[in-house]
């Protein structure tokens, strides 16, 4: 034991050897940040890749279809033989119908359960419920789509007369269930970060817990809650598998929710699973739709970012 220890204390020779090692050390020290930086660059390249792909192929699309027809056309009939029509409004209408229904389901339930978890529930309940919500958030969308098609739609057909097998209502509700955990968990985070002293102040003045929740905590956490809702809307707009399984493939520019619809994402799926040859107008149309979708979600994400930054209360 003793001799080993003596070996480890550095002699002069070892110090010289060490200083030689310093050279390779220096190289590693210089190379690693550069290497790691190149990994970080990948994420920027991804964004550029997405933006340029979408712009280039959409540009190709607009060589064949006029932009005004695309933006203001109320008929989306890409497969109709000689005279295909590419007006995006029906696809946007389908997307917004589903999103709106989803929001109507998710926002009240999401915020109500966030209030319950942050203001009423015991620590133990919160610790059990939150992981379960995580499970709900981790369920693949394909499973939700199957659930919508085989469970929610048949039940709704019993309740709502004239509801088609493919409709906006059923996928809308299920998308709402999908984004619910996101709203709950982000809103709960926002409400939990409201300092206890504010609650205690209100309680000391004789407020009930409900009054504290609605009049103190909710306004204080409002920016976080609104941001969570906006993020959830963005998620609902980009959701794909639920709407393409349960929404159908009939783009229509109206307000009917009992009829078959088509969303932007569902259209991209429809073309991808069919045989649109490379280079055809239909092939390029999925990029123009993808680009529109990208803009919608980007605006939502930036808005959520802005709200949570601009209106963040600092305690």
């Amino acid at each position, binding site marked *: 034991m003793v001799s080993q220890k003596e070996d480890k204390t550095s002699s002069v020779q070892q110090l010289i050897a060490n200083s030689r090692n310093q050279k390779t050390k220096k190289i590693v020290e210089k190379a690693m*940040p550069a290497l790691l930086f190149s990994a970080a660059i990948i994420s920027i390249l991804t964004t550029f890749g997405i933006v340029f792909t979408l712009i280039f192929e959409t540009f190709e699309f607009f060589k064949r279809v006029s932009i005004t027809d695309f933006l203001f056309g109320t008929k989306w009939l890409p497969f109709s033989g000689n005279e295909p029509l590419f007006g995006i409004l029906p696809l946007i209408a389908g997307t917004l119908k589903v999103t709106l229904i989803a929001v109507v389901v998710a926002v009240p339930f999401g915020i109500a359960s966030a209030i319950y978890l942050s203001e009423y529930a015991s620590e133990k309940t919160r610790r059990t419920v939150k*992981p379960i919500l995580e499970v709900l958030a981790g*369920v693949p969308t394909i499973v939700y789509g*199957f659930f919508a098609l085989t469970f929610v739609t048949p039940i709704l057909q019993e309740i709502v007369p004239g509801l088609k097998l493919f409709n906006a209502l059923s996928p809308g509700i299920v998308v709402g269930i999908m984004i619910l955990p996101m709203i709950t968990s982000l809103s709960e985070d926002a409400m939990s970060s409201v300092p206890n002293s504010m609650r205690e102040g209100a309680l000391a003045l004789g407020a009930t817990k409900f*009054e504290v929740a609605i009049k103190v905590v909710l306004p204080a956490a409002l920016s976080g809650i609104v941001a969570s809702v906006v993020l959830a809307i963005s998620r609902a707009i980009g959701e794909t598998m639920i709407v393409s399984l349960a929404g159908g493939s009939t783009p229509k520019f109206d307000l009917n929710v009992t009829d078959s619809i088509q969303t932007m994402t569902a259209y991209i799926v429809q073309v*991808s699973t069919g045989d649109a040859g490379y280079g055809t107008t239909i092939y390029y149309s999925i990029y123009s739709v993808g680009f529109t979708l990208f803009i919608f979600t980007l605006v939502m994400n930036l808005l*959520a970012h802005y709200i949570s930054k601009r209106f963040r209360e600092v305690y």
Partner: protein
Amino acid sequence: MRYMDDTVVMKRMTKRITANKVWKTLFFLATTFALVTLAVLLYRIVTQGIDYLNIDFLMNFASRFADKAGIKAALIGSLWLMAVVAPVSIILGVGTAIYLEEYAKKNRINDFIRMNISNLAGVPSIVFGLLGLTIFVRMMGLGKSILAAGFTMSLLILPVIIVAAQEAIRAVPNEQREASYGMGATKWQTILRVVLPAAIPGILTGSILALSRAIGETAPLVVIGIPVILQFLPNGLLSQFTALPMQIYDWAKRPQEAFQYVAAAGILVLMTVLLLMNSIAIYIRNKFQKRY
């Protein structure tokens, strides 16, 4: 001076207390709504799928006939996909996180990288599919291969891994780094031998959760054009393949009712894989995560 009127106060108090109770119940019911939905969803799928779930189902290839349909190609395909996604996304993600947490100075480029990552996290997965189709399938000529799909999925889950790894690295207290520097270690040595080992549980937990998202993700695969009915197993990274969610999607949209049960059985397999991965993540989190 007016004294408070006891009866008025009592009346108002009762009203407010009742309101509190009623709303508490409503909030509680809203919370149970999510839990009940989850329970119903799981119950439905288990009762629908359990009869079809047997060894034959796991060992058979896809088929036009519901009673012969199996999930072998999809299950193996998903494993192959993970064999690409796991190393690529973890190396890139952890590398980026180390760079951002340990090296990045506060300047424009690094701010841009940070902002960019949070924006990427909000891009719909189907748009990543379009990216994969153009860049990997067509421009790089990888075809509808495991590699093309794997790269696409890696980019998709990259933001999740980066954020998880950043949080894990940030949680390592500075005293540990300072102690390491104090002993004469260089920056990279400190990162490799002090920071990373301490951050690994957090990184692993986040990575496994991100990978389980990649396993369930369907939209990018659909856009890339991954085929469904395959009668062979992949034999290399450039080979064609199919994956669990693709297979389920195909079964779910078939008109014959029998395929609904097959789809449910497929979902059971997928959910089992996910549950397994999530429990590993939770196990790692509970067992190894230290609080400083």
